[in-house]
């Protein structure tokens, strides 16, 4: 993947990750049932902490993407 692709990946995962990680559940719950709150996946109820973990993983991907952009720019 080229620099531009890494940059786009970093931005997208950064926005999605920040959304799940930093915005309090109460603030977005009413408009965001479609965003997996209280959904069931293979019999496992998705809890708020699962989404925080997903957000953390997306932020890791975002960081690595920006780090890659930095490396490609050097």
């Amino acid at each position: 993947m080229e620099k531009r692709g890494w940059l786009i990946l970093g931005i997208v995962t950064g926005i999605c990750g920040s959304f799940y990680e930093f915005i309090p559940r109460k603030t977005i719950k009413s408009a965001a049932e479609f965003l997996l709150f209280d959904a069931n996946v293979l019999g496992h109820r998705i809890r708020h902490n699962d989404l925080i973990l997903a957000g953390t993983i997306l932020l890791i991907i975002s960081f690595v993407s920006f780090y890659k952009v930095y490396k490609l720019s050097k």
Partner: protein
Amino acid sequence: MKTYSNFLFSLAVTAVMNALDMIYHLATGWAVHLNYVAIKLTVIFLATFMITQFIGIGKEEGIAASIFGPLMFYVYYVFAGPTLNREIFRLDEQFWFIFLHILLMMIAYFAAWNFISSKKFWTKTVGFVIAVSFTSAALYALFVMIRWKSAGIEEETAAKMMTFGFIIIPTTAYIAGSILGVIAERLSKKRFMDVLAAALVPTVIIGFFTKEISTAVFSLIFVFISYYMVHTFKSGFMSDA
């Protein structure tokens, strides 16, 4: 092969970091809880693996992974809702623990990295001993915690059973075993002798203290797994170089 080597390298770094972390927590009276260890393993592993896979391996990457992994774990702690009673479980969620985790992560990363890249015998050997023995200790601790959980032991009881004595005896046995393995390899010049010597010590010691054949057998298997991991990732990196 490169992905598999990176996978094993990251797994070993994560396991060593967690073993060191567990030892510190149990020595100083902090709780070690399976679910929290699982989250820590996931976050630290993913950060290390992604940096190793997409950026590379080296000093700068090691420092980046060592800072970023614990930082993301702290971020998770801050935003996740508490699921455990903090009056019973004293957890490592204070800010200053980031610095401890960074230090332990650096020890883990640079031990594995020195084993791969160092030309000096002692640096390489110390890196190897740390990588093999603490990976085995982490696998052993995880095995026991999972066994307790599957046996239906309550979280509170399991946390009380996790004492410093629980982890320090197997860790010491694994360190002694891996040092003996290095000596055996130097003396005999045969590859399998080091694994046999390294596996024998923890098997006997853990078997003696736990008086359980199954635990002793698993402690033996963990040495084989650790040896396989470190030698496989090393040969993977050497063939790429």
